[in-house]
C-alpha cells in the first residue's frame, strides 16, 4: 500500500517538495495518546493520558524522568521514546559528572533534535516515530520544548501533542496568559482540565489513566526537583477539578475559573488538594 510513488524512502523528495516518510512519522505522533505541558513562573507541569493496550495489561507509562531537573512526556512509538530517553539520561549524567551542574535543557534538546534530523537524511534509517515534550527547570528558569520526527523543535509556554490534542490546545490557548501567575496547584488543575478534553468519548479521565509530572523549584526556593504523580496520588487532583466526562464541554466553555473555584470543592481526605510534596 502506498499513497504516493515518492513515499517509500526517507531520502526521496516528492515533487511537491515534501518528505513523505517524515510526514508519516509525524502521523505516528498524532496517533499516540495525548500529553501536554504548561510552564508557570517556577514550575513546569506535564500531564499525560495513559493507554491500556488491553484489559489485562498495565497502563503504558507516558512520563519518563530524565534527571532531577527534567522529565519528558511522550506521544508515539514507546520504544523509540525509550531509546531517546536513554540517550538523554546518559547526556545529563555525563554533564553532571563533568560540570557538577545540571545540563541546560536547550542544549540537550538541540542534540536530540539533531538525532532526529540525521534519520531524515539517511537512506539506511527510519525517522523516530515519537514526539517529546521536554519539561525542565535549569539555570535559565522553567522551559517546555516540543521535539518531533522532522528534527524541528520549539519552545512553548504550553503545548499538547498526541491524539485529540487539538482540544487541549484550544484550552491552553484560552488560558495561557494566566499561567505565569498561577501557583502550582492551579497549573496542575489547568493541566488536568486541558487533558480531560483529550479523553475519548468511551473513556473517562481517572487515576489509572491520568499521570502528572512537576518539575521546578522546591518549597525552599533553591533546590530543583522533579516529581511524577501517578495512580492513587493523582486522585486528589482529579477530585479538585470536578470533571465528569459530560462536564468536559462545560469546563471548556467557562473562561477563567472563578476565583472561588477551589473554595467550592471539598478538600480531599488526607492531604490538601494539589499539595505536591516537592521533596
Amino acid at each position: 500500500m502506498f499513497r504516493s510513488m515518492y513515499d517509500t524512502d526517507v531520502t526521496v523528495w516528492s515533487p511537491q517538495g515534501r518528505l513523505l516518510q517524515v510526514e508519516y512519522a509525524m502521523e505516528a505522533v498524532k496517533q499516540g495518546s495525548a500529553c501536554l505541558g504548561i510552564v508557570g513562573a517556577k514550575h513546569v507541569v506535564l500531564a499525560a493520558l495513559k493507554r491500556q493496550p488491553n484489559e489485562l495489561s498495565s497502563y503504558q507509562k507516558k512520563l519518563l524522568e530524565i534527571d532531577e531537573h527534567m522529565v519528558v512526556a511522550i506521544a508515539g512509538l514507546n520504544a523509540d521514546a525509550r531509546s531517546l530517553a536513554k540517550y538523554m539520561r546518559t547526556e545529563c549524567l555525563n554533564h553532571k559528572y563533568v560540570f557538577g551542574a545540571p545540563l541546560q535543557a536547550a542544549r540537550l534538546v538541540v542534540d536530540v533534535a539533531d538525532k532526529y534530523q540525521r534519520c531524515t537524511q539517511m537512506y539506511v534509517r527510519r525517522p523516530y516515530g515519537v514526539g517529546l515534550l521536554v519539561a525542565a527547570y535549569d539555570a535559565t528558569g522553567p522551559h517546555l520544548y516540543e521535539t518531533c520526527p522532522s528534527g524541528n523543535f520549539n519552545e512553548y509556554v504550553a503545548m499538547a501533542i498526541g491524539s485529540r490534542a487539538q482540544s487541549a490546545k484550544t484550552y491552553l490557548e484560552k488560558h495561557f496568559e494566566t499561567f505565569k501567575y498561577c501557583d502550582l496547584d492551579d497549573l496542575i488543575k489547568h493541566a488536568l482540565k486541558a487533558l480531560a478534553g483529550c479523553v475519548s468519548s468511551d473513556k473517562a479521565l481517572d487515576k489509572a489513566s491520568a499521570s502528572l509530572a512537576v518539575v521546578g523549584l522546591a518549597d525552599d526556593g533553591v533546590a530543583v526537583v522533579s516529581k511524577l504523580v501517578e495512580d492513587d496520588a493523582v486522585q486528589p487532583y482529579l477530585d479538585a477539578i470536578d470533571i465528569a466526562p459530560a462536564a468536559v464541554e462545560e469546563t471548556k466553555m467557562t473562561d477563567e475559573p472563578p476565583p472561588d473555584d477551589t473554595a467550592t470543592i471539598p478538600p480531599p481526605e488526607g492531604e490538601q488538594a494539589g499539595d505536591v510534596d516537592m521533596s
Partner: protein
Amino acid sequence: MAGGVAEKMESSSPMRHTTRPIVTGTSVLGLKYKDGVMLAADTLASYGSLAMFQDMRRISKTGSYTLVGGSGEMSDYAAITHMLEDLDRENKNANDGFEFSPKEIFYYLRAVMYQRRNKFDPLWNSLVVGGFKDGQPFLGCVDLRGTAFEDDVVATGFGAHLALPVMRNKWRPDLEEGEARALLEDCLRVLYYRDCRALDKVQLSKATSEGTRISEPYKLETDWASASFVAGPGGDLDGDGGW
C-alpha cells in the same frame, strides 16, 4: 604532552608521557574578599633554574565570570586555556544566554585533570579557578592528580608553603579591595625574596559583580636592606640571607 600526538604520527614509536615539567611557572595566589575574588601571579616561566621567559602571563579569563591561573608546565597551561576557549566558544555558539559559572569551569578542569592522570599522562599544572557569578564568589584549586578543593584562600607551588600561612593569618571575609591587594602583594614579595623561581614582575586580577579584570604586568617594590639579606662581615657564608 607528546603522548597522543606522537603515537598517532608514528605507530611504531613507544607511548610517551610527561614525566617531568620543562618550562615552569611558580606560585599562583588567590583569595576571596568583600567584592569578589582576587588572583595574583608573577610572569616568569623558568627553564629549569634559568629565568627564561619573563613576560609569561599565567592568569587568563574564560567566559565573563571566570579567571584561571596556572602554575607548573607552561605548555600544558596553554593547552588548558585552549580547551577553555573551545568551551567558551560552544557557549557563545549556542546563543541561549547561558554561560558556565566559575564552579562549572572548576568541575570541568577537575574532570580533565583527573582523566589525564588516569592515563598516567597528566597535565603538569596546579590551577587556581576564581570567579564571581550571581552574587556568589568562587575560589578553588585543582592539581595534576585531579585533587580539587574550594577555600577562601588558595596558593599553589611554593606559595602553598610561604604565602598561605601569611594569607590565612591576615584573611577576613570583609577584606577591602585595597587590603586584599596589599596582602597579595606582600605575599608575592615574600615569594620573590625566598622562591628562586619567582619574579618581581606580577599581575593581579579580580572577579567581581562587574566582571573580570586582569592587570598589566607591573614591578613589585622590593627592599633588600633587610638585615637577613645583607652579607655579613664574615663573607658570603654568614648572613647571606640563607637560614
